[in-house]
């Protein structure tokens, strides 16, 4: 017997507990099953690209903090690298190492939130995310030690960092590095083989590798689909070519694989930090850079592997103190391209976790 049912439209968001910000999914449902989805963006659009055209190069660094607000350090780094490329600024070795340490710490912090929020979307009543925020807190404390900020760090400068690390930073980092692997194991024990987690996320929201490449997905989304592509390996920037680490990849490209990739990446980040701390050289933390940078006419593109993927900054200079054009290649936005076909045919509950597994930050999507 077939029942005649009538589809109805449900707005998931912009104020919804699990849209990770102000995202809106205009879904058409047939019962519980999603028939059609239209993602609607723009609730957090602040016009950062336009604002940047009115600010000095240095004044844009705080704006980049507000793109991916869960990984400000990475944003700082990507932007500073673009300006350094444009203006030909040298970065001292110590600063490069410290940048790598900070960016990797930031990746761990961001993935902790990403994984925790994913489990919240799975309906795990806060427990995983509270545990993970507990660990993230330690990283945030480390950052606070550096710059006094806990979310928007504004710490990197052209040619290095805004200041050298205080002497208590490295012992604290050492302690964190000793503790963290045990905690990651603990989370895996709690979550990895949980039958409900497997039942909910295995084979759910599969993104095949060809599609993932075709939609320009990057970061854990691309690697979850089994494509071994990491900017740190493929196009090594800073001093990443001096460290040994693996690129974890998934096999099926489902929500579970994307979650696993993030967890494994945390382990690899710890490896990188260990090596970077061991190799950390002395010397200046910043090269001499004029207060107002006036890069020559031209354009530059620098990209890094941020926590969410291939984060790129494209700058066009007209030899003034402000960029002529400032463009952000936002991985969060581009990763969402296949969202519609990933969601159609799934139930509402699945839609939430598929969306959660892509792990976006609205600040970066809407800019």
């Amino acid at each position: 017997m077939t029942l005649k049912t009538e589809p109805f439209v449900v707005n998931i968001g912009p104020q919804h507990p699990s849209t990770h910000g102000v995202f809106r999914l205009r879904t058409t449902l047939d019962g519980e099953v999603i028939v059609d989805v239209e993602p609607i963006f723009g609730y957090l659009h602040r016009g950062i690209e336009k604002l940047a055209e009115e600010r000095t190069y240095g004044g844009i660094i705080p704006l980049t903090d507000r793109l991916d607000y869960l990984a400000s350090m990475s944003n700082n780094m990507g932007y500073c690298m673009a300006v350094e490329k444009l203006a030909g600024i040298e970065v001292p070795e110590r600063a490069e190492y410290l940048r790598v340490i900070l960016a990797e710490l930031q990746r761990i912090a961001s993935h902790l939130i990403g994984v925790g929020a994913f489990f919240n979307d799975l309906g795990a009543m806060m427990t995983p995310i509270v545990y993970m925020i507990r660990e993230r807190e330690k990283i945030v404390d480390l950052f606070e030690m550096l710059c006094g900020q806990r979310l928007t760090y504004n710490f990197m400068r052209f040619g290095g960092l805004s200041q050298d690390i205080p002497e208590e930073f490295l012992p604290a980092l050492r302690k964190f590095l000793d503790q963290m692997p045990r905690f990651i194991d603990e989370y895996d024990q709690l979550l990895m083989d949980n039958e409900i987690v497997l039942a909910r996320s295995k084979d759910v929201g599969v993104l095949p590798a060809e599609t993932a490449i075709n939609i320009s997905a990057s970061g854990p989304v691309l690697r979850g689909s089994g494509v071994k592509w990491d900017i740190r390996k493929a196009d090594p920037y800073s001093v990443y070519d001096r460290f040994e680490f693996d690129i974890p990849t998934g096999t099926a490209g489902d929500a579970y694989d994307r979650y696993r990739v993030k967890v494994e990446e945390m382990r690899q980040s710890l490896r990188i930090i260990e090596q970077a701390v061991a190799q950390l050289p002395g010397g200046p933390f910043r090269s001499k850079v004029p207060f107002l940078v006036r890069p020559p006419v031209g354009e530059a593109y620098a990209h890094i592997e941020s926590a969410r993927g291939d984060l790129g900054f494209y700058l066009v200079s007209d030899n003034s103190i402000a960029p002529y054009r400032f463009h952000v290649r936002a991985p969060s936005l581009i990763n969402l391209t296949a969202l519609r076909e990933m969601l159609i045919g799934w139930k509402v509950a699945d839609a939430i976790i598929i969306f959660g597994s892509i792990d976006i930050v609205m600040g970066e999507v809407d800019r």
Partner: protein
Amino acid sequence: MNIVYHGIAVPDMKQLPPDWPGGFFWHWLVFTVIIFTFVFTLVMAFTWVERRGLGRMQSRLGPNRAGPFGILQPVADAIKVLLKEDIVPSRSDRIVHWLAPVVAFFPALLIFAVVPFQNGALLADLDIGILYVVAISSVSTVGIFMAGWGSSNKFSLLGAMRNVAAVVSYEMPLVLAVIGVVLIAGSLSMNQIVLAQDIPLILLQPLGFLIVFIAGCAEINRSPFDLMEADSEIVAGFHTEYSGMKFAMFYLVEYAEALALSAIIATLFLGGWRGPVLPPWLWLVIKVFAVFFLMVWTRTTLPRIRIDQLMALAWKFLFPLALINLAITGLQVVAWPDALPWTMIIVNFAIAAVLIVLWSRLFKVGWGRVEV
């Protein structure tokens, strides 16, 4: 001997519960007051235990400001929520919207009429006690569906639909598992069931206990079956559009149902008020808290399952197991009525373990998409 007990003819049983405290109206009045006090106090205690327990398990403190150890937090919550504005959506069905919390709340309260606090200390020692519980507990669903329908909100409707589906499905294994207890105790009366438990029936009915606990959790929206109010999916489910006092009612329903389920499980499987040294009512409260703690524990640990997985679990996992459990119990009661309890305990635990392992191999809740 013709015994009339509160107007109901009681069959000649091994012992007659004392008429406590005596007189029809006094009995009615005293126990109504006791039940109200019991339910409201314990619901407040439950919210406190749940929040503190969740906090502890999540390595945070939980509410600790109002009163010592935050013990007055429920009072503060209640005052806050009662003072809030009552917002009714403009396109809602006002009468249904208004009536829904009431319809949902009363069944939860009515269940306690048959929960014994002591030998014979209950509002009405119905001969069909457990049947009454099963019948009444489903009525809340009507209230919840009214809330979902009357709010004129799609999230509410989805949540209410899920709730109806869950209750209809889970009532089956629940009742079948309860029948196992009835077979052993030889009575449907809650008081007689307690009196029959010289050893707690959880030992003789381990599988039945698990099925009742799981199915009960599913019926009263406890995690991991809380998908009728799945906050990450459908905001707050059926009570999305409720605020102020009506929301407080639903909040109360949620915990009153948890309390009712805990009390029923404590009565059926854990020996109810029976226990050494401490007064009987205290034993009941302790057992109720023990069961509730189990619920809090699962809530912090497990993610939520999907609606089709919920259905699959009910019909493919719990239902067959409940049937098998019933058949085995019936066989045991008929064939070996005088067997030593300890052999039976070992046999039943072994059977439960084998069945659960077997079914978890045979049946997968399902990865990926399930076409329905």
